[in-house]
């Protein structure tokens, strides 16, 4: 059993004035690749720190692989791998030295567990004498992952491993996570990039300390499906302003080359909007109905919670 269970966790800072996590409950199954998706300040790091026994929750209970995060912290520390959000390796030690050091701290050796990190390590091996501080973002992140893996953890916690990393390195990183998952390691990973949600088995959308949804990506999107239209015209800025000014518009946001629009009255809004825009003299308008993706869904959920506040 190497799953993670979180029940009604609440955590505040500054003597209760700042609410970081608000009554959160989650289950991560053993061997699952689970994503925490949400912007900065949503509470992802706080949750990671509670799960890695670095913080004590104000309320609620959480277990990792069956061990309680408060009482059994020593047991948890033996079986988890943790990669904090900030690059947290020794900048003045080389790749090799960092790895060897962390291997010893985790009571193992680099050679003993080389098979675990081999396919990641070969990518950075040519630079093994280089100091960690002089590596690029993508390489630092690979090194940090190696260090977190060196002791063959049962559960891996990765706090925003891909932030500030370019799309190519990000894709490679997720490929690596797939291979780790295949070894049976439970992985909980957070990211502010919505598109990475598709790489997870299940995801939790988190915002301002609350969980908006927990499920597979498809189910979350399906559940929150609403008629959505993509509209584009040469002058985007003016178009967005005009669409927002239209009475039946629910939301209008730029999306790639298009602008995604939803209406208060569903599909009926679209012909009305087209009339409205024609009156304003728009030509070259192109429009089509589109399937919402995770980002559309997140925006919808955010708007809903904000309206409830």
């Amino acid at each position: 059993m190497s799953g993670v269970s979180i029940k009604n966790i609440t955590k505040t800072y500054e003597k209760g004035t700042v609410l970081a996590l608000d009554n959160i409950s989650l289950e991560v199954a053993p061997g699952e690749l689970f994503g925490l998706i949400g912007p900065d300040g949503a509470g992802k790091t706080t949750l990671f720190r509670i799960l890695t026994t670095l913080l004590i929750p104000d309320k609620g209970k959480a277990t990792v692989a069956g061990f309680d995060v408060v009482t059994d912290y020593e047991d948890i520390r033996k079986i988890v791998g943790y990669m904090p959000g900030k690059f947290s390796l020794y900048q003045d030690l080389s790749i090799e030295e960092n790895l060897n050091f962390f291997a010893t701290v985790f009571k193992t050796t680099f050679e003993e567990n080389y098979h675990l990190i081999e396919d990641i390590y070969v990518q950075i091996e040519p630079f093994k004498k280089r100091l960690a501080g002089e590596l690029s973002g993508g390489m630092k992140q690979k090194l940090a992952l190696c260090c977190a893996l060196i002791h063959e953890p049962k559960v891996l916690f990765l706090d925003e491993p891909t932030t500030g990393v370019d799309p190519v390195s990000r894709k490679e990183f997720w490929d690596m996570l797939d291979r780790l998952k295949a070894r049976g390691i439970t992985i909980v990973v957070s990211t502010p990039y919505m598109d990475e949600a598709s790489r997870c088995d299940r995801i939790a959308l988190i915002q301002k300390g609350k969980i908006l949804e927990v499920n597979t990506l498809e189910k979350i999107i399906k559940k929150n499906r609403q008629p959505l239209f993509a509209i584009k015209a040469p002058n985007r800025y003016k178009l967005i302003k005009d669409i927002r000014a239209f009475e039946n518009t629910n939301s209008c946001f730029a999306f790639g080359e298009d602008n995604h629009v939803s209406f208060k009255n569903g599909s009926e809004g679209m012909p009305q909007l087209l009339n409205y825009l024609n009156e304003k003299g728009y030509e070259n308008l192109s429009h089509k109905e589109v399937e919402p993706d995770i980002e559309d869904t997140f925006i919808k959920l955010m708007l809903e919670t904000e309206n409830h506040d």
Partner: protein
Amino acid sequence: MTETVIHTDKLTRKFGDFVAVDAISFDVKAGEIFGFLGANGAGKTTAMRILCGLLSPTSGEATVAGYDVYKQNEEIKKHIGYMSQKFSLYENLTVKENIRFFGGIYGIPRKELLEKSNELIERLGLTSEADKLVGSLPLGWKQKISFSTAILHEPKIVFLDEPTGGVDPITRRQFWDMIYEAADRGITIFVTTHYMDEAEYCDRVSIMVDGAIAALDKPSEMKKTFGAEDMNGVFLQLARNAKRGEG
């Protein structure tokens, strides 16, 4: 024909044997939103530093707002705005103090600064937060204040270095609304980002690979050229062939 505000011709910067920026040539027109993309280590930061007057090129030509990057970098600094995700505002100063401080740096006269900062605070809807410490505000707000501060002195160009990293999808788009508005007023936007959908919000985009510009076009044209569905596809095709990539 609109004015050219950034012009580079075979702009090159070497660090020892390492060619960080390799003979890049491009023009950016006034009021344009120019996306400057590239993998980590492709040379984006170096190129941006040269254009901001912080670093001298090794060879080639470049002018920013009409000023030469070799000789007139002090003039350049006066006519540009700069905002990065890493350094934005002083956390332990209030919103008002931050705005006035950065406005003061760019030599906006006192009286005008006072008016402008009040107007800005009102426009951002921050009247009730004006005297709060910036550190207590959510990241999204900080980014908006930071951007508004960077263009308070009405620069010709504003350089934005990954301005939206880690921001939620709504705030990110609100941020882009502000960018559009500024571009509408004639301010040229030079922006880097790792969000590929944001690349499509730009008028034109360049993608750097191994220090050189591998592609430069309108996002729609670029997608056609590379037969990709979105900019992410274009980027992956180009950057995957990068030789040095990580450096």
